[in-house]
């Protein structure tokens, strides 16, 4: 049996709670409306309910309320509710542990307790923009009970309770993020400094290399001129005083000096290719070849070489001076590597494959065994003795490096005894 007193108290409470919820839900309703609803509600209660139903509803409401409050309290986010004057109305557990206050201290705290002194105006302007926009997110330095500051991100929204506007805010400690950002900034600065330093080093290394190349061209060649020149003078001015062996020695001095000079020039050309930046532009292979033929004209005449060019040759994207070096090396090889006594025959032609131009330099010379096709493009790699075929072994290295620098390729097809077909490939003009 139920006590009537309890029952009536329960009824009133239910009505009150329901009313509260209504109020929360619909804050704009006027007091008259609320009064009307109160009357309606009471009528319903008085006329319809049974004891059983009332008990059920009461516990349900209690349960609901508890559920939401628990959610608020146990939320992983630190949440506060405050009025527009900055007075705190309610906070959850997480917020308390974030600031290090207990509940009553927190409710009593003023804004200057919680916000770093320098940040107060920032907080005020955030509240202002909250009033005009309804919601805002801002970063601010907050302060714990022990005075320790921490960076936070506050996302605040505004709503009304009983016609009065309140602020609900979620506070996130962003120390970790700030630290990561700071770390990142430091790292980037470090990286920038590192890159700058490396660039400096490379630049000075480049300068050093340049001055090295300079002194090579100047200083190393001077004694060579002397060797060659005076050995020559011996041969001419003292010819009667030298026997054949003496003359042979003097001739060897001359030819060794000449060889070393060519070697130095080739190495200089090679190192220049490695360090100078090439900007590819439109180059006519016809004009490149014209220049090369002119350069080699005395050699070509001397050995009576036959050179056929299938004109017109196309235009390619490349660097004129580099292409002259490349073709001059290919052509001088083509007329050099023939059986002794054989007149060199060379054919030069171009084909276009997939917007790329392949220029072929084909000879009928001694040919190259397939196992050496890669190797000969490396610097100083030669397949014959200096006596039969003089050279430095730098020519094809220049060809390869030059093509690399122009974004092209080079290669060879050859069978020993059946001549060699060297090719270089470049982008077609205008592509």
């Amino acid at each position, binding site marked *: 049996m139920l006590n009537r007193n309890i029952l009536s108290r329960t009824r009133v409470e239910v009505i009150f709670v329901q009313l509260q919820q209504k109020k929360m839900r619909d804050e704009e309703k006027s007091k008259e409306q609320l009064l009307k609803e109160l009357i309606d509600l009471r009528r319903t209660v008085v006329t319809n309910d049974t004891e059983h139903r009332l008990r059920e509803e009461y516990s349900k409401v209690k349960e609901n309320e508890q559920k939401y409050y628990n959610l608020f309290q146990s939320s992983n986010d630190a949440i506060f509710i405050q009025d527009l004057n900055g007075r705190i109305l309610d906070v959850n557990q997480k917020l308390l542990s974030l600031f290090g206050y207990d509940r009553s201290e927190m409710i009593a705290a003023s804004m200057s307790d919680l916000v770093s002194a320098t940040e107060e105006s920032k907080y005020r302007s955030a509240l202002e923009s909250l009033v005009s926009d309804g919601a805002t997110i801002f970063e601010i330095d907050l302060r714990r009970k022990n005075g320790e500051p921490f960076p936070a991100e506050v996302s605040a929204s505004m709503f009304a309770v009983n016609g009065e506007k309140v602020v609900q805010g979620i506070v996130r400690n962003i120390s970790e993020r700030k630290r990561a950002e700071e770390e990142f900034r430091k790292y980037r600065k470090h990286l920038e400094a590192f890159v700058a330093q490396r660039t400096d080093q490379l630049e000075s290394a480049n300068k050093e290399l340049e001055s090295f*190349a*300079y002194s090579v*061209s*100047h*200083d190393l*060649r*001077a*004694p*060579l*001129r*002397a060797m*060659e*020149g*005076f050995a*020559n*003078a011996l041969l001419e001015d003292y010819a009667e005083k030298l026997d054949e062996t003496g003359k042979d020695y003097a001739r060897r001095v*001359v030819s060794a*000096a*000449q060889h070393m*000079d060519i070697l130095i020039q080739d190495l*200089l050309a090679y190192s220049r290719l490695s360090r100078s930046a090439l900007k590819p532009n439109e180059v006519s292979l016809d004009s490149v070849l014209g220049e090369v033929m002119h350069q080699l004209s005395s050699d070509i005449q001397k050995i009576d070489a036959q050179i056929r060019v299938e004109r017109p040759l196309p235009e390619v994207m490349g660097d004129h001076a580099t292409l002259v070096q490349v073709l001059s090396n290919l052509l001088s090889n083509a007329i050099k590597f023939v059986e002794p006594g054989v007149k060199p025959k060379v054919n030069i032609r171009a084909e276009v494959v997939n917007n790329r131009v392949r220029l072929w330099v084909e000879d009928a010379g001694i040919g190259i065994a397939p196992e050496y096709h890669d190797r000969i493009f490396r610097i100083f790699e030669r397949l014959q003795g200096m006596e039969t075929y003089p050279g430095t072994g730098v020519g094809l290295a220049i060809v390869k490096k030059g093509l690399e620098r122009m974004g092209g390729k080079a290669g060879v097809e050859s069978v020993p005894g059946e001549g060699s077909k060297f090719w270089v490939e470049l982008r077609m003009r205008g592509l």
Partner: protein
Amino acid sequence: MVTNNHAILLVEDDHNDVLLIKRAFQKVKIANPIIVLNDGEQAISYLAGREPFVERPLPMLVLLDLKLPRKSGHEVLEWLRQQQTLKRLPVVVLTASSESSDINRAYDLGANSYLVKPVTFDALVEMVKTLNLYWLILNRRAEIANG
């Protein structure tokens, strides 16, 4: 001051090169006298007619090395091109360097020609032959008053 002279001024510090160049001139049978100076400072003093070169004959051609003691060939050239009429003197750079920076700078400063010393003596003789034909025989000279 002798103005209409046939001398050639060779500014060259390498004694081997001086010998070889003189020998090449002999081979080509060039009769013009060769005056040799071994550094850039001397070259400027000579051309300016300062002590000890007050009585110097003005050359008809300067053969100028670039890498010289005291003052570089570039500096000599720069100075020369700032002189009153002396600046008309033809200067042929004769050097070991084939670096484009050296070549460009020489022309910027007013060189008339730029030759790279060849290593082989035969090539040097060929070069001197052409030099003789062009600069000493064909080329017309400007009037040069005393600088």
